[in-house]
């Protein structure tokens, strides 16, 4: 009896420590980011930093608006490319897929999620870039290429979460619709999909999170010029690319400005996660 109680308490503490470790990591990262980044933002001036269109570290001019815009454009492009394909794939896999094909598709989607991002980048560089260059001219690197590549990269997230959301919808919804005379397609698209709406949105939001935070793949296909993009074929530099490209050399204010870029990125991710939490709450 006594022995069991000791064990019980011991395990409780162990679990508590495990839980604290991840919270501690988040807190430390927040502290590090804000402690190093915020002073730089105020030294440069929040307006100049967030709305400045010129990034010229050699002369201590740090405006990250082109990078913010770049991240937003590329992410928006990824949504346009990835969401329709992802959601439709999920609907297919949950409702229409023959079991034999499903046995191939499910592992294929999972494999897509496991491919390292640098491999995606290399694929983009040797496969996508020449196609875009031949179709539209220019260098082939830019918003469009990065959007397509990111669209592919966020597919697994969207597909697997949407699929499980669809599968979680009670079967009676489908049966009811069919019983009322709806065709299979109608039953799926007008009862199942709306019923799984919040789960599907959660998948999309997580996909957005992945797209905005992606770095290595984007660096290889986006062209990375720190100027405001003027067309969908313009080269862009995302916030993540900005940090990676220059961190190795940066000193003093330049380094802090890069960390401050990380702060802005962190706030974006925070907003995305907040959206995710809100959707989840609505669902519950």
């Amino acid at each position, binding site marked *: 009896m006594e022995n069991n109680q000791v064990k019980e308490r011991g395990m409780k503490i162990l679990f508590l420590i495990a839980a604290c470790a991840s919270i501690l990591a988040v807190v430390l990262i927040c502290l590090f980011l804000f402690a190093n980044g915020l002073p730089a933002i105020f030294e440069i001036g929040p307006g100049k930093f967030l709305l400045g269109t010129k990034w010229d570290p*050699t*002369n201590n001019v740090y405006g990250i608006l082109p990078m913010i815009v770049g991240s937003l454009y590329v992410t928006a492009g990824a949504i346009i490319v990835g969401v329709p394909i992802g959601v439709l794939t999920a609907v297919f896999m949950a409702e229409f897929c023959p079991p034999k094909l499903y046995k191939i598709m499910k592992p294929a989607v999972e494999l897509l999620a496991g491919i390292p991002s640098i491999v995606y980048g290399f694929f983009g*560089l040797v496969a996508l870039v*020449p196609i875009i260059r031949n179709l539209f*001219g220019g260098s082939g*690197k830019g918003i469009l290429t990065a959007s397509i590549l990111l669209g592919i990269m966020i597919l697994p997230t969207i597909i697997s979460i949407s699929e499980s959301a669809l599968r979680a919808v009670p079967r009676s919804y489908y049966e009811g619709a069919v019983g009322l005379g709806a065709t299979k397609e109608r039953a799926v698209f007008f009862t199942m999909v709306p019923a799984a709406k919040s789960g599907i949105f959660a998948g999309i939001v997580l996909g957005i999170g992945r797209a905005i935070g992606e770095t290595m793949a984007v660096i290889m296909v986006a062209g990375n010029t720190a100027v405001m993009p003027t067309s969908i074929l313009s*080269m862009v*530099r995302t916030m993540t690319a900005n940090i990676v490209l220059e961190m190795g*050399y940066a000193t003093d204010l330049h380094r802090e400005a890069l960390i401050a870029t990380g702060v802005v990125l962190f706030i974006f991710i925070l907003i995305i996660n907040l959206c995710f939490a809100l959707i989840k709450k609505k669902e519950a």
Partner: protein
Amino acid sequence: MKQLRIFAILLLVTVLVTGCGYSGDMIDVVSREDGSGTRGAFSEIFKITQKQDDGTVLDSTYDNAEVTNSTAVVMLTVSEDKNAIGYISMGSLNDSVKAVDINGVAPTAENVKNGTYEVSRPFLIAVRDRENAVVEDFISYILSSDGQQVVEALGYVSSEDGSEARYTGYVKSGRITVAGSSSVTPVMEALKEAYIKRNPGVEIEIQQSDSTTGLTTVAEGISDIGMSSRELKTSETDKGIIPITIAYDGLAIIVNPENPVDNLTKEQVYDIFTGKITGWNEISTDTTE
């Protein structure tokens, strides 16, 4: 939702169509990231970065130049895009790209050595004091004819500080740390391999970072030898660091093998990389005077 999606697709198509105003022979300029030793050397040689009177540095690199953070990506981009131009270390050249002549001089190790090919930079090592016997012996190896042969075998140009004499030293054991430029690292790795074959008891640790970091660690006594792909700044020599040139690296200006241009003047390279020349049609292929 449905309408919104259709609208989004329509928008995408319109932007695509209007965005296609590129002509066929626009030059795609490929540059390196700010702070890279290769970019620094390139910009300085072609005077793309210039010190202003008020102490600021004016970098006139073309705003629409692509920025990449590795030699491999520069080469792959140029090898696939027939309108691209970029620059890489001569030691990395291969057949997938074409190196153009500058002012009529071919980028060869020989021309770098005799000074006619001007686009080159020194590879330096830096030490703080010359008291450590192992460091001293390693440097004597690097500058001996054996060491300089290793340098040349890699496609770099031997240093004028190098001697004709062969390496005769021997150290029984010891441990040194070398840190700095990622451009110099491949040369240092090869030199280390060859040196350790002669002195099996010595351990050499190479830490790859960048020139500035390497020199700082030497000044602070954290590492024994620093590697730099640029000349030392006065603020660095003031800290008592002594630079030694171990090799020269030519920078090759590379274009696609299909590109008919074989020769560019220094002015043309400047104009291309600052965006004054934006089309290949502005460069006559017959520039041999």
